[in-house]
């Protein structure tokens, strides 16, 4: 996977990364900033074409790669629920059927009637995850989308992810919060400068990563608090 920089240099964002993810499991992807985690997810989602190799997916991908994608910030949260649902592939009837579940999960109360330009990043996170998680995803990609939520909402998200996995949804998760990855993921991939440094059980990979970072078993990100 290469991207051409403005100076004309070719940057290999990902190189020789190969792994399998079991259906109905949570798979973590960790690494430093610029390791290629988001590029990996965009390749899996079909947004960036691979230059070598192949991505094979058994199921429909629902990407949650950025907060507020598809939302119009001048409109209210309610109006954006329809827009966000349509953006990820639902038709209006399907969004209507899930509307109450999304509203209940997001727990935004009367803020749903305010323009989204008044929302905090946490509120964006709530609504974005609520929509993505209620679309019957088969393969759900979460790239740091839980970072901005408060602790109570994160616990709610974890419960929802567990529920999705029981329904045979595969969840791939990028997070800088190692406790989150250890709590949720069965297996994990550690990327470093576009290369797979280590792949295996989440506990082992996270432990090796933290040892490399020099943080030991301490929290490695604000998300862990």
């Amino acid at each position, binding site marked *: 996977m290469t991207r051409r920089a403005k100076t004309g240099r070719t940057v290999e964002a990902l190189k020789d990364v190969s792994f399998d993810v079991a259906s109905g499991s949570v798979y973590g992807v960790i690494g430093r900033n610029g390791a290629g985690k988001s590029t990996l997810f965009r390749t899996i989602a079909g947004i960036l074409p691979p230059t070598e190799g192949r991505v094979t997916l058994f*199921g429909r991908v629902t990407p949650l790669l950025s907060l507020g994608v598809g939302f119009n910030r001048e409109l209210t949260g309610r109006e954006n629920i329809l827009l966000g649902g349509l953006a990820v592939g639902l038709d209006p009837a399907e969004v209507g059927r899930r509307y109450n579940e999304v509203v209940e999960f997001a727990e935004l109360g009367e803020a749903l009637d305010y323009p989204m330009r008044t929302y905090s990043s946490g509120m964006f996170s709530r609504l974005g995850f609520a929509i993505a998680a209620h679309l019957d995803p088969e393969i759900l990609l979460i790239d740091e989308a839980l970072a901005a939520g408060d602790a109570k909402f994160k616990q709610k998200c974890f419960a929802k992810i567990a529920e999705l996995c029981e329904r045979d949804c595969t969840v791939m998760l990028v997070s800088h919060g190692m406790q989150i990855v250890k709590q949720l993921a069965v297996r994990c991939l550690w990327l470093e400068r576009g290369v797979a440094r280590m792949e295996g059980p989440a506990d082992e990979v996270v432990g090796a990563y933290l040892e490399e970072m020099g943080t030991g078993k301490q929290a490695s990100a604000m998300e862990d608090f």
Partner: protein
Amino acid sequence: MTAISPPPRPVTVYEPTVTGLPAMGPYLRGIWARRPFMWHLARTELKARNYDTALGQVWIILDPMLMVAVYYMLRSVVRPIGTELDRNFLIDHLIWAVCFFQFTSKSLRSGAQSILSNKQMILNTAFPRAIFPIVAVTIGFLDLMPTLVVYAIIHAILGLPFGISLAVLPLMLVLLTMFNLGCALLYAPLAVFFRDTTALLPYLSQVWLYMTPVLYTVGEIPPNLKPILQWNPLYVFWAALEQIFAGRMPSPGYVLASAAWAVAFLLGGAVLFLIRERDFAIRF
């Protein structure tokens, strides 16, 4: 008890970038499946556009009418109008000609920006990117509709006739929409790969205005300039529309030429857009 098996999951394979057009069947089905999204996106963008202004959606009508007033003043300074009938014909001509030209220029301008201004969606969602130029043209079309209602009212107030030729107007609208979509699809990848082209667009649009029978009628074009102006694709559209709004059936030659330009631009724009689409996310 028999267990009901879940439906088989779709298998998707992404392989290395290939040149050329994508598989058109799945691509067009992907666009067709996103009809509610495109419609809703267009409506919400229209709604949000004048959210903070005092006059709100009134600007959809006020903007072209103010341009008509400006061009009318310009015309009356350049050449005295003459009789009241001449004045009425000029006002009538300017209103429809400006409104339709704004449909084209807005489609081109918004279509050109449609990929760049939707960078977040391009980078974070996977659906046919042609949706964005289509939405841009849809917004231009939705802007045009209320202005046509205002035009019809003013046309009646000015005492000008409505003819059976109006039956051809929907066809010309479809052809102009196809042409505008072709322009948007053509310009959008140019704007991604050569950002300077967006800076050139206002000048191109202004020159195109002067070369199209907007500020003048087809009959007012000097004979020595007509062969040059006829190379402008919009010439035949405006020539047909002028006849329609004057109550005369448009010349079949103008309608056929409009159809030919519409198909050529739509196909050409679509081909260029589709062969470059895969690189949009990489270019950001």
